[in-house]
């Protein structure tokens, strides 16, 4: 059984990467939030498996926190937010999807070649997945760049945090508990503040297009 666990972790890592691409290509906000939720679930599963194989109880806590925050609480908050803002179909991209995808492949190749020498040095169980985690971070970053609306950008930010957490988990076999709690709290507060921001942007400009924020003064 434990023979399969590293393979399963790699499988979940691939799933997280796949979901990052799906989010990059997704046009609808509701589906975007659902994809983010599934990504959180995959991340939690990977944490639990890693906890099982390494015997670190910290990882179970980390996985539980991920499950609670990123699968239940934050998606629920985001769903409520888009219902209140009434922006269910509101997605606009600065680049078309095929171009985004091609740039995405280039990013994945870059991330993989960057991570390959590092993961050779690491003796962690899932060290090979570092490249995937790095690719997820870059893809989420890309998503934040190519979207002009506020809600997809927030989801991109959260997904980037997923990637970072996954990178830290795979390389170090789990961070200290206090750091985990700190990050979890940060993300939660971040979403709350960004939610308030979104309502403010909307009140000011009647739209969630953050390009309005580029000019400093009303002319």
């Amino acid at each position, binding site marked *: 059984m434990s023979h*399969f666990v*590293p*393979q*399963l972790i*790699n*499988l979940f*890592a*691939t*799933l997280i*990467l*796949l979901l990052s*691409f799906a989010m990059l*290509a997704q046009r609808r906000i509701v589906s975007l939030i659902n994809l983010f939720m599934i990504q959180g679930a995959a991340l939690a599963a990977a944490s639990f498996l890693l906890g099982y194989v390494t015997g670190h109880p910290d990882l179970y806590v980390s996985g539980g926190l991920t499950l609670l925050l990123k699968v239940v609480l934050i998606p629920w908050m985001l769903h409520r937010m888009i219902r209140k803002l009434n922006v269910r179909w509101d997605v606009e991209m600065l680049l078309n*999807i*095929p171009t985004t*995808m*091609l740039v*995405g*492949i280039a990013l*994945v*190749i870059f991330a*993989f070649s960057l*991570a*390959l020498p590092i*993961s050779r040095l690491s003796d962690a169980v899932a060290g*090979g*997945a570092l*490249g*995937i985690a790095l690719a997820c971070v870059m893809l989420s970053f890309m998503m934040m760049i190519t979207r002009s609306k506020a809600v997809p950008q927030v989801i991109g930010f959260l997904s980037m945090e997923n990637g970072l957490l996954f990178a830290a988990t795979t390389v170090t076999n789990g961070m200290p508990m206090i750091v985990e709690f700190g990050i979890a709290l940060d993300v939660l507060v971040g979403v709350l503040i960004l939610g308030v921001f979104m309502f403010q942007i909307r009140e000011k400009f009647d739209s969630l297009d953050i390009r309005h924020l580029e000019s400093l003064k009303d002319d």
Partner: protein
Amino acid sequence: MSALGVFSQLMALVTALLLAPLLTGWINQWRHWLQNKSAPSLLQPYLTLHKLFNKELLMAEHASPLYRFTPYVVFGCMLLASAIIPTLSTDLPLSPAADAIALVGLFALARVFISLAAMDVGTSFGTLGARREMLVGFLAEPALLMVMFGASMITGSTSLTVIVETLAHRELAIYPSLLLAGVAFTMVSLAENARVPVDNPDTHLELTMIHEAMILEYSARHLALMEWAASLKLFAYSCVGLALFFPWGVAEANAPLALLLALPVLIFKLAIGGMLMAMIETASAKMRIFRVPEFLGTAFLLAVIGLLVNVLLGGQ
């Protein structure tokens, strides 16, 4: 080349010829059930073939010889394709004739001929269908090749029989790259077999047709061969999918008993696969033709990422 090898090759050919219309009928039946319609008989494709073979052949007025022999070329391509795919046994004397890359080439050859024939008669629908088919084809082919390369990288060979032998007989392992390749392959086979997200196999609206528009002018035995070739293509794609992703139950060389057992296993796997295909078709809506590049681009991307993941994780 042993006598058993020749026998298993013949078995594979006969199975392909006989089971292909049945698979089409099975998928149609499930699709009708899932859409709350009363389903046609499972044997309907055979009845259609029988009817078409007995009809009088009518040729378009301006048809060239190319139009006349295209059905035979297409049928031959699909037959050879089904012959080299290990469906029942990996002991196939014909398999050194063509590896996975040549298999993609065979499908491409059939596609070129069918498109040329569609344009040959000079009707506008034929030309329209041919152009769309080429649009779908040039995007689907690289994705299919990448899927094949993904499997080849794991097994170290491009020969389909070696791939199946290696995958089926090594220690059970989970390959993340095969997961990605599997998703990509499903998307490609939906597009290549004129299935719902890309094309609707039983549409009557010429403007939305792809495959049907190309064979509009064919009649009688030519049409029968085209329909049979389409069934064989679907069968071949399903079998490639099964061979790459569910290779268990395929007999090895010199195992007559396993060969007998392989047929029920194959039918079982195809039955499940056909049901899943009907579900995908029912659950998805036909997309605009200009969304197809996006769809197939995603398939290509998934296959490439599968390859990259394989490099990164070192085929663990």
